[in-house]
């Protein structure tokens, strides 16, 4: 079975514009709002949203950081593969700020659970929202839902959703990989 294209470059472009507009609607001047990309793959999406907000909507000086959740995950010592940490870069205080988490795929909700704990180390935010490109509904283990959502997908548990970005993988696309192809294709993608 071959991989299925969930979103192509044109659709992603439209969705990114819509998400940016929705953010502006709720956070008109971003005065008390900070954006946090969740490492590693949420950062790719957050970079694009930030770029849109700055270049097309002329909103400058949005506080933007990267949050790594490796040390906060609940599957430490439980997963087969050891977890490799990424860089956390938050050089502002989130105390009393509105925080927007950005991640590419919302699946079980456990990463976001970890991020909710991790962000506490940088202060007590006023409120936290979640923006995702893909929401794999029906796969949730925890009561976590996105506030801004690109596309809802009904994928079964063995399938894998893979997001490609122009700057990193050479194209904007979202694929649904069937069960038997998971390892082969994700192996190939790692080399890229």
């Amino acid at each position, binding site marked *: 079975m071959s991989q299925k294209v969930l979103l192509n470059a044109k659709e992603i472009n439209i969705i990114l514009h819509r998400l940016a507009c929705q953010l502006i609607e709720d956070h008109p001047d971003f005065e008390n709002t900070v954006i946090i990309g969740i490492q590693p793959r949420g950062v790719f999406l957050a970079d694009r949203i930030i770029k849109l907000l700055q270049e097309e909507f002329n909103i400058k000086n949005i506080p933007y950081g990267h949050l*790594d959740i490796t040390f906060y995950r609940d599957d430490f010592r*439980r997963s087969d593969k050891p977890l490799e940490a990424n860089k956390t870069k938050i050089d502002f205080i989130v105390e009393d700020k509105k925080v927007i988490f950005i991640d590419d795929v919302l699946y079980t909700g456990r990463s976001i659970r970890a991020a909710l704990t991790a962000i506490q*180390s940088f202060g007590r935010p006023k409120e936290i929202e979640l923006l995702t490109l893909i929401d794999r509904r029906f796969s949730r283990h925890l009561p976590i839902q996105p506030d801004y959502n690109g596309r809802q997908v009904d994928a079964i548990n063995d399938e894998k959703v893979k997001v490609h970005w122009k700057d990193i993988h050479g194209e904007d696309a979202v694929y649904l990989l069937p069960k038997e192809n998971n390892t082969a294709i994700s192996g190939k993608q790692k080399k890229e």
Partner: protein
Amino acid sequence: MSELSVNHLLGIKYLTAKDIDLIFKTADHFKEVINRPIKKVPSLRDITIANLFFENSTRTRLSFELAEKRLSADIINFSAGSSSVSKGETLIDTVNNILAMKVDMVVMRHPNPGAGIFLSKNVRASIINAGDGTHEHPTQALLDSYSIREKLGEVKGKKIVIVGDILHSRVALSNIFALKLQGAEVKVCGPKTLIPKYIQSLGVGVETNLIKALEWCDVANMLRVQNERMEISYFPSTREYTQQFGLNKEILNSLNKEIVVMHPGPINRGVEITSDVADSKQAIILDQVQNGVAIRMAVIYLLASKIKP
């Protein structure tokens, strides 16, 4: 490549260059963590660690304890003076009794060389050697190299001289292994009586003139004279040692380049190093202490990730 090749940290001798690289990269993340407003992560909340100190320690014990707490591990502390060791209990019995309380990891300092290796073969727990007699002190060597890397960019190709009591120093031996593994050049300097006879077989040079050694090096690691391990006199007097191998500001300023000064502590001010050198800009002694916590967090985290629940 995100896993250590070993299940215990018994000595630098058993590590690969890749292991050291992984420990340093992980320590980079933890260094960021310990500079946050809240300096704690919940990773090891289901791990229990026993700190067994059969020999005195201030810095190392506090540093390990802080690292464990920053990782949210549960800890129990033990020091030999106040224990049943004085009633004649053997090491294996002591440790097995502690492990019966469901302990996952043991950090041990012991006066006998090889105590950690012996323990790792006889008990079921991950062992971290926090100093075994005159043998190895791996976390100290790791934090020393990490501090050099932080100050000078990399360890490879750098010239490091270790000055002082090489014969009794586990810091010296672990440092030699670690620095050679990372591609640094190493020389030792000290009174001939305190330099082991076959030290060259480890690939290090020997220099008995302090000024020459300092002019050659990028980094000078000044060790403490370990009077407590000396049963006989290895040099005529402390004063004479200081005159020949003590580092003072006058010597430091006379060198044609600015070298980095390190000391593993505790310092005998005025013996191996004067106060104005220890407190100068060239000394990174307190950076070493801060890096010690990050390095120990990295080692504990990486070893704990290999313990299956």
